[in-house]
């Protein structure tokens, strides 16, 4: 391997963002430029998937350059089995989001450029092997998302964007403090300054217990807000409801994953003893998120808000998987991140479609849409069924595995989160009934209901295909994840 594939993955969105931004006079060219520059990373990531050696474990495609020597900061990239699916997911979703936004006509070049900047940040987070670099990319993600919501969002976009910004910024500052603590603590053991994840994690078992508990708290807070976990979730429904469709897709599909990725990449390996002390907090917050999210879904009238709350519930499952500290739990958690990324993209795209065609997302005002929009209805059902964990679709395996791991680890405590399965089925099927089936609604103008356009069908079809493909053959993903999870488990002093 000679080409620096990971750097190229970062480089193309960056160039693409600049090029697209300069296409201000010609929206059509801006769209094509964004399409090309989001397709290249997708191809690169597919190439990476084939080149990645699943059995080898550890980090691959590593690149490392000294950046700020005085502080021991490196430009250091690498991927392992946890990040590989995330990198693929990121490139895929951004590419599809660009296609899906084909009819954007308001400040198109800026919109597309922001999507690419977002891709740059998210990919950076998933590939950075230096805590400092990790933090920088983490912050880079904030800015495009803030603008996506505040310029192209719904009526209360200003409030939602600021709330999103402040919540996640405060969280990331807590995380930054935690990272600094790690940095200095590792220095006192190693004798030299370094932000390298591997070097800090290598000495993490030597950190004092009090230190670990405190610092894990800071890091966990940072990641839990991003995930988001109950009770730090309140920014999410607002942000989602106001965000434009592509923004929602990337917010739920990628940004939330950064939180859970941070837990498994940073918090657990760097502070294993702290993690053990915090295990019950993680479990309780996870269960609360799962159940609370599901209950909130039932009461929602806004389709998009319902999907947003379902994200909280499903990210709770990720956290529950992590909190078991078992191989199955961790692997299933990572798999759930991946599967939720695919499914939630379909769901948010469908919310966008419904809003766009019917002019409202208010569930009670809808009904019988399946008759007018058969294709849209099919994709929506695929999304709903996958999300509620129907066997054969990608949501089932991780959810089931997490519950298995939970039972192994905590026994009958499983009964509480498992209730959510019934709740989830209830709200999805009920929502499906009220929007897609039954008599055609008279409350909205259904005369001009138009089924999907090509730029809507294509992303939905790709995603639905992948949902079924990975549902049938979960090993396609799990084979990447499992060896890497073993490494994390080893650092956790695992079983």
């Amino acid at each position, binding site marked *: 391997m000679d080409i620096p594939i990971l750097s190229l993955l970062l480089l193309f969105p960056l160039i693409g963002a600049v090029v697209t931004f300069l296409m201000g006079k010609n929206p059509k060219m801006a769209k094509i430029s964004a399409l090309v520059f989001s397709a290249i990373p997708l191809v690169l990531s597919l190439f990476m998937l084939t080149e990645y050696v699943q059995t080898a474990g550890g980090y691959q495609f590593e690149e490392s350059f000294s950046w700020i020597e*005085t502080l021991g900061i490196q430009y250091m990239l690498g991927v392992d089995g946890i990040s590989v699916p995330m990198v693929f997911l990121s490139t895929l979703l951004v590419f599809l989001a660009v296609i899906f936004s084909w009819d954007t006509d308001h400040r198109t070049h800026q919109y597309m450029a922001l999507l690419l900047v977002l891709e740059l940040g998210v990919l950076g987070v998933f590939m950075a092997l230096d805590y400092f670099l990790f933090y*920088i990319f983490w912050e880079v993600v904030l800015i495009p998302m803030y*603008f996506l919501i505040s310029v192209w969002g719904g009526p209360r976009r200003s409030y939602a964007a600021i709330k999103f910004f*402040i919540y996640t910024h405060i969280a990331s500052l807590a995380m930054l*403090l935690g990272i*600094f603590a790690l940095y200095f603590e590792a220095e006192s053991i190693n004798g030299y300054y370094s932000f390298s994840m591997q070097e800090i994690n290598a000495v993490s078992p030597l950190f004092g217990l009090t230190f670990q508990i405190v610092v894990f708290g800071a890091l966990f807070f940072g990641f839990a807000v991003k995930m988001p976990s109950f009770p730090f979730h309140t920014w999410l429904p607002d942000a989602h409801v106001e965000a434009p469709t592509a923004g929602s897709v990337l917010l739920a599909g990628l940004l939330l994953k950064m939180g859970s990725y941070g837990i498994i990449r940073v918090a657990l390996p760097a502070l294993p003893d702290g993690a053990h002390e915090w295990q019950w907090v993680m479990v309780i917050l996870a269960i609360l998120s799962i159940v609370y999210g599901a209950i909130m879904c039932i009461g929602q009238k806004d389709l998009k808000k319902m999907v947003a709350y379902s994200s909280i519930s499903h990210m709770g499952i990720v956290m529950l998987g992590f909190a078991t500290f078992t191989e199955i739990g961790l692997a299933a958690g990572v798999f759930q991140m991946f599967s939720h990324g695919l499914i939630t993209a379909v769901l948010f795209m469908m919310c966008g479609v419904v809003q766009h065609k019917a002019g409202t997302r208010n569930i009670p005002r809808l009904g019988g849409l399946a008759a007018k929009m058969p294709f849209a209805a099919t994709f929506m059902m695929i999304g709903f069924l996958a999300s509620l964990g129907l066997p054969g679709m990608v949501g089932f395996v991780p959810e089931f595995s997490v519950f298995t791991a939970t039972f192994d680890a905590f026994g009958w405590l499983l009964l509480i989160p498992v209730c959510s399965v019934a709740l989830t089925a209830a709200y999805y099927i009920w929502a499906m009934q009220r929007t897609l089936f039954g008599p055609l609604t008279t409350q909205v103008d259904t005369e001009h209901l138009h089924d999907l356009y090509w730029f809507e069908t294509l992303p939905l079809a790709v995603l639905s295909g992948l949902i079924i493909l990975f549902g049938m053959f979960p090993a396609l993903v799990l084979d990447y994840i499992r060896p890497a999870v073993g490494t994390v488990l080893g650092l956790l002093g695992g079983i």
Partner: protein
Amino acid sequence: MDYSAIYPEIILALFAIALPAVNLLVEDSKFLAGVSLAGVGLSMLAVFMHFYDGVGPAVFDNGLLVLDDFSGLFMMVFLSVAFIVILASAKFIEGEKHAAEYYCLILLATVGMLLVAASTDLFVLYVGIEITSISSYALVAFRKKDIRGTEAATKYFIFGGLSSAFTLFGISLIYGITGTTSFEEVGALVGTLDAYKEMLWLALVMVIVGFGFKVAMVPFHSWAPDVYEGAPTTITAMLAAGSKKMGFVAMFKFFLVAMLAIKADWEIVVAVLAILTMTVGNLAALNQTSIKRMLAYSSIAQAGYILIAVAVGTEFAVTGGIFHILTHAFMKGGAFIVVATLATVAIGEKIADYKGLAKRSNFMAFSMTVLLFSLAGIPPLAGFASKVVLFSSPIQSGVAGAEWMIWLSVAGIINSAISLYYYARVVKYMYVDELEEDAPSEKLKLPKSMMAAVAICVVAVIGIGVFPEFFIQLCRDAATALFA
């Protein structure tokens, strides 16, 4: 006597004196600006040549003034600020009377800053501060028909005079106790003066109050927003980026050289004041409607951050402090010059006047965004790099025993989060909000020289942010020289 240590000051002073004479021959204010720029440039060259020769520190008059890594770096910072301010002024004060005096005073103010940077003696330091202050009073009142400017100048003068009196009183007490005004000699004696402890504390309080006014430290900050708002905006840039930083140089020298031996007595006071300053500054900035006042309060907050370096007092912390002073000079100076530039094309000083600015001038909106995000500490910009060094210093020294210092980092980081709100608000106005219905919407024609000044700041902010290593080394050398 070895004059090479004071070449920069001499050059600048000569140009300052020559300017009114040149004015008798040439009336063109642009030409005067060019002459001043040449003076600043030559002075920079003198500093640069000294380090290029690599002969080590140069000493003047038995060590009253020293040109070493510390003073050299600050001279470069002050001269850069002067350069940018003069470059922007050429257009900003075009057509106004007394241009020669204006540039002359800017150069003299800069001479004072250079003297402060080079001083190793309390009295020289005091003289340097006074040269800068008195020049600044006159500069703030430059538009003497402008009511706000005159009010600001009066306020500045009264507060400034008072603070000078406090400083002088403190210095005289110290002289009375120790019999010397040299920082090093005071530093050597100060730990052995238990009999005069009360007197020393009184002196310390006096000096803290005096310097506190200069750097706009809470609770001595109230003059700053009024003065920053009332002064001509280019001068505001100089006050915020230059003369305020001079106060920090004075503080570094006074606290970390002269008073280092009794650090345990004052560090907690400075730490509390640092937290107060950053918090009050940021909270007050939140609901300002005038962009100049907002930036003024943000300046106060940034002063709070830099005070962390004084409170922690390790070499690493001072590195961070110096680094932040350096980056802040470009970020804040640049931001004020953006305001000044826009004022020349009739865009007001209300934050709301910036609505839809991106449509009218992409360059200005982008520059302001970079500068404000850098002030907020968003990576990978300069303000982030310097805050990282600065905020990590208490954690580093905290590991060594003073655990409470970690709260300085916590406060700094929380404050950065708060500050993001008001910086992002301006960015939102510029990019997100549409132009008002009846507002003019044509593209802005901006003066080239001012855009150049802004561009220098933006390039510096991005460049330092992406390649901070070199600058951190410079600041570290400077910190080492301070403690040497």
